[in-house]
């Protein structure tokens, strides 16, 4: 299908998504910094609770720690996955491709909580098991997407690149990588959004994240805490997802890399 035809239909959707991004970011910041001032609101909503607002740590501090944990673990994951996927394009790496494809496929069925649970006995409680678990779990979507992206390059394109005298390195950097970029970005997006959710669960092993109000709320029967923590995690995930959407659109507009045309 012609992308020229697809664009006008996309334009209003794009505007809606931009609005969504601004709204979710606004709500996130309002909740993170304005929670201490919301005492009357939550007292009215939860009249049975003695302390209806989570004030043990400032929500903004938890948010930044949460974001930091996700940023570090996702960066590690993206680097490992990208290097591993690119390695499968080399002659020596090709042998590992089936094994990696199997691992990537298997990993998708593996619940993140299980990875977290396995990490604790190995390294103890705290930030470290969370970081390890999130890094490992974040690898899989990126690995799978990058390999799919590299595989989506039409054989005729690779053939002509070779026949024109491009070196294997030039083929990788100038043909395969740019064409795999949109799928790679989709993988990074999945990885980051899933990690934002999983980082909340990381509070159970002692990492200070936005999951903390949820855990404390659940164990102390304080539904207001659960709601406040869950709203923060949800808004953060939505904002991140919409931000990646913007990035993908910007990328599409500038590189115009569609593989769909090589019918």
């Amino acid at each position, binding site marked *: 299908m012609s992308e020229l035809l697809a664009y006008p239909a996309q334009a209003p959707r794009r505007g809606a998504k931009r609005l969504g991004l601004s709204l979710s970011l606004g709500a996130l910041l309002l909740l993170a910094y304005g929670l201490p001032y919301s005492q009357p609101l939550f007292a009215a909503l939860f009249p049975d609770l003695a302390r209806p607002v989570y004030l043990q740590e400032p929500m903004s501090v938890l948010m930044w720690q949460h974001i930091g944990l996700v940023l570090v673990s996702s960066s590690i994951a993206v680097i490992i996955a990208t290097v591993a996927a690119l390695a499968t394009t080399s002659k020596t790496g090709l042998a590992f491709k089936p094994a990696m494809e199997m691992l990537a496929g298997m990993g998708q069925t593996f619940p993140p909580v299980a990875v977290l649970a396995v990490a604790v006995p190995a390294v103890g409680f705290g930030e470290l098991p969370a970081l390890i678990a999130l890094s490992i779990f974040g690898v899989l979507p990126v690995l799978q997407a990058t390999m799919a992206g590299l595989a989506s390059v039409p054989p*005729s394109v690779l053939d002509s690149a070779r*026949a024109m005298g491009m070196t294997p390195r030039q083929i990788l950097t100038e043909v395969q990588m740019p064409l795999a970029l949109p799928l790679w970005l989709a993988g990074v997006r999945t990885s980051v959004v899933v990690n934002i959710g999983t980082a909340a669960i990381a509070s159970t092993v002692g990492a200070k994240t936005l999951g903390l109000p949820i855990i404390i709320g659940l164990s102390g029967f304080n539904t207001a805490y659960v709601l406040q923590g869950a709203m923060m995690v949800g808004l953060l995930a939505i904002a991140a997802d919409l931000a990646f959407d913007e990035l993908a659109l910007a990328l599409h507009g500038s590189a115009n890399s569609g593989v769909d045309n090589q019918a």
Partner: protein
Amino acid sequence: MIIKFQNIRKSYGAQAAIADFNLEIQKGELLVLLGPSGSGKSTILKMINRMVSHDEGQIFFQGQEVNSFNVQDLRRRMGYAIQSVGLFPHRTVAQNIATVPKLLGWDSQRVQARVNELLTLLAMDPTQYANRYPHQLSGGQQQRVGVARALAADPDVLLMDEPFGALDPVTRAALQVALQQIQQSTGKTILFVTHDIDEAMLLATRIALLNQGRIVQLGTPLELLQHPANDFVVNFLGRADLGLQQLSLRSIAPYVIPIEGTPPTHVIAHSATVREAISCMATLHVSALCAVKEDGTLLGQVRAADLLENNHV
């Protein structure tokens, strides 16, 4: 001689795909490798730029064995166009064409001038098409860009693997004419793989007819039609069409005779082929036509009987 195959053998498993293959390609000729699928014609072509390796024998390019070249250097000296085109979808038309010149380190001004020159040569307006992406072009336009890309660095030889095979007949005919013009104006050596007999007859200076990895017959189109080496050649070229194929290779010019009595009612250009003249007569239900020059000057007449009976008037 620009390319020479000497006792080439290529096996896939125990099966020999190519055996005892010898062929010399002269500078400036358009040699068509013709044959049914599986005859090894594509394999032969791809051995020249080492997309496929040969097991035994030697292939010389400009007097040197192809394996003695750095493989990238070798390929940059040869244009390559394939049926599926293989344009880079993330690059514009201009960037696609510039691929090999950029690899060779041309400065950007020279590259741009070359891109414009080639687009013009292939009848595509540079101002309109240079910055488009491949998916914004029709199939025929994509293949024009593919041919331009193959020609970009002014290669010594052009390797074409069924480049027009996926195009509709009208577009294919237009590109065949464009290729003929390019070959005539640049004198490029072209190796052209096809299974389309009409295409081979139209384009070739020489045809190598292949079957099961061997050359069955090598010669000009007319030689193949007039003196087919064996039954395979006759059958492949089309037993029933053999006569008509020959007629399409011959001009009516030698058959023009002075008009005696009433002149024929219809005219035909003296540059027409015998096949076109006979087709014209059959359509109009006449047995003779006036032959005229492009400017309309009457040259004489051609008669059906002469065209069909006489080989040489």
